């Protein structure tokens, strides 16, 4: 129990300290240090869960089981590597005058606060606190999206705030309806919002209320996942915010929002007994994959393009969770992991590329291999990974999802294949000239440290070939949990 409290207290303390410390020279290192300590504690927590099974903590307000423990470690890990990436990135931004002292303070402290809200959302057992944490995550990052104060970034941040705020209000209504249904069975002492208790009595929850509650929860949290048609904030927020923020939004926030939906789906499935929840998720997921793929092909800004790629992959994961069953759930969990790793790696590479080229428009970036081989290769390999090339992990998970779809929902398979194909063609066609083209820029004298990129890609590579046994066991356990 103390581990969980420690896990949450560290980023919160980091946020408080960086509020005053954030503009000093050593601030990025302090930021990374806090993230590293968070990662260590997360690993410790993971070890405890491997040994001892699920943990309930602090008057049952926290619950860590096989579903969220790997997400916790993933969050802490990506948070750490992103903080490493953000060190030289922010230093360069500061030198170019795009970031000032107060803005750096805001950035560093909100980074830690955002990590705190993500971890709170993952570890809490209380569905109401889950809502609070998700809303707090939006609040923590909205000022970061607008940190450059350009017209476009202000617009992106406003859309983000309003659209996510409205969405999350729907989720609040869903939570209220859930509490309403739960209260009739569990009474009013305050246990009615605890997921562990709800899981035990989910068969007794009133179906009419639960179906309406799930719809609102799906729409609400789905806005934060970026499901079409609620996705409008996503491309703008990714494109206009600083690159480390794009990386954590894609890599972390979308995952945690999807995790929230999945927790609610478990309850809804138990209460309804039919495939209603799964069907809705499949519908939204499919729609997201298709729409995102087609919008992708029309983008000119590199970060917007990869943002649409995030929407597409989240749609795919939602579809997989919607299908249900052990294989699809396993594939979706694997996909969550590798997508998070690869997409953040891509954003790191893109961040460096954009900084070197000074523009985000893809037509103006050329010949990255000549200018800086590491950035070029990082981007190329990352793109190949996210497009589903073997042997990266994305291929394995997409393969499993497609085969399950072929077996159970054959009508969806051609649509998925078409969308994935369109996305493949579009992204590859855009990235290839960026990496391999000709350019007049000279080669960079010093090479940016792209260690985080290659670490992530390395993990993705490994997961494609061999999943460590404990990880596989978790995925299977979690998959069974999700029915």
């Amino acid at each position, binding site marked *: 129990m103390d581990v969980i409290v420690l896990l949450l207290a560290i980023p919160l303390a980091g946020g408080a300290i960086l509020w005053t410390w954030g503009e000093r020279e050593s601030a990025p290192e302090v930021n990374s240090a806090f993230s590293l300590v968070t990662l260590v504690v997360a690993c410790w927590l993971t070890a405890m869960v491997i040994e001892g099974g699920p943990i309930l903590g602090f008057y049952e307000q926290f619950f860590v089981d096989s579903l969220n423990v790997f997400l916790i470690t993933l969050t802490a890990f990506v948070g750490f590597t992103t903080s490493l990436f953000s060190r030289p990135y922010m230093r360069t931004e500061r030198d170019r005058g795009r970031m000032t002292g107060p803005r750096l303070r805001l950035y560093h402290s909100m980074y830690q606060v955002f990590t705190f809200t993500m971890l709170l959302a993952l570890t809490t057992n*209380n569905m*109401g*606190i889950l*809502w*609070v944490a998700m*809303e*707090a995550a939006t*609040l923590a990052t*909205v*000022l970061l999206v*607008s940190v450059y*104060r*350009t*017209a*476009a970034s*202000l*617009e*992106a*941040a*406003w*859309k983000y*705030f*309003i659209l996510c*705020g*409205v969405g999350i*209000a729907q989720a*609040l*209504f869903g*939570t*209220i*309806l859930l*509490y*309403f*249904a739960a*209260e*009739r069975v569990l009474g*009013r002492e*305050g246990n*009615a*919002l605890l997921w562990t208790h709800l899981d035990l009595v989910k068969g007794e929850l*009133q179906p*009419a*209320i639960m179906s*309406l509650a799930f719809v609102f929860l799906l729409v609400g949290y789905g806005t934060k996942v970026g499901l079409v048609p609620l996705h409008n904030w996503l*491309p*703008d927020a990714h494109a*206009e915010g600083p690159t480390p923020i794009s990386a954590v939004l894609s890599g972390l926030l979308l995952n945690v929002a999807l995790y929230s939906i999945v927790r609610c789906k478990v309850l809804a499935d138990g209460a309804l007994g039919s495939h209603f929840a799964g069907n809705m998720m499949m519908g939204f997921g499919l729609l997201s994959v298709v729409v995102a793929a087609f*919008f992708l092909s*029309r*983008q000119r800004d590199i970060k917007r393009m990869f943002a649409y790629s995030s929407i597409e992959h989240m749609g795919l994961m939602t579809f997989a969770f919607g299908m249900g069953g052990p294989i699809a759930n396993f594939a979706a969990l694997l996909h969550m992991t590798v997508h998070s790793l690869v997409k953040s790696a891509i954003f790191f590479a893109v961040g460096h590329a954009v900084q070197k080229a000074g523009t985000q428009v893809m037509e103006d970036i050329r010949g990255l291999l000549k200018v800086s081989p590491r950035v070029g290769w990082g981007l190329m390999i990352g793109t190949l990974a996210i497009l589903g090339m073997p042997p990266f992990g994305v291929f394995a998970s997409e393969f499993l999802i497609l085969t399950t779809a072929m077996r159970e929902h054959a009508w969806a398979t051609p649509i998925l294949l078409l969308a994935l194909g369109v996305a493949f063609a579009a992204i590859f066609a855009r990235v290839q000239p960026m990496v391999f083209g000709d350019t007049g820029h000279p080669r960079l004298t010093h090479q940016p440290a792209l260690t985080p990129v290659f670490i992530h890609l390395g993990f993705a590579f490994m997961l494609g070939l061999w999943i460590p046994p404990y990880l596989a066991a978790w995925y299977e356990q979690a998959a069974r949990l999700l029915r």
Partner: protein
Amino acid sequence: MGGYGTQIVNLFAATLLLIAFAMLAQRRIVALIHLFALQGLALVGSTVTVAWVTGQHHLYYSAAITFALKVVILPYILHRLIRRLNVKWDIETLLNIPTMMLVGIVLVVFAFNLAIPISEFSTSMARGTLGIALACVLLSFLMMITRSKAVPQVIGFLAMENGLFFAATSATYGMPMVVELGIALDVLVGMVILGVFLFQIREQFDSLDIRHLESLRDD
């Protein structure tokens, strides 16, 4: 006595709905803030009535938090904001007011229809008001969509949260305390952030017209 309690809560619910409609038709921002404060008062009144009739003491605390936040602090922040931002009038809406009110009525019918089968399950004394709460949420949502200035959109957002809070107190007897505190904290922090944000917008565009913020499109 329970009969009287239900009637009083129903009366507060009707007041809430009336205020939500009035906000739709309102042109002046200062009047919008006053209506929002009135809505908060109606909310507090209904919570206190439910607390008194059913004897649930945690609802008194909840009502106190609501009063402090929605009747005192938030309107104060909003007043200061509009004084410093110098926005007093908001003449245009995207649809004209009679059309908006017709759409509002359609939304109310929709909300009532949605809520009737659900509210039959409620054992709360104020069960009929779930439909009204949902209607308030939808009307605030309509207000947000059809306004072209930033501050009325924000007030619509806050009014939506009022509707949700009313839904929580009417369908169930309020959420657990810790959740309510969390929600209140979120709302407060959100307002503070919004205040900062609106200044940034004004600095960049010299106006708070939302239509300046529509240039990012997919092309």
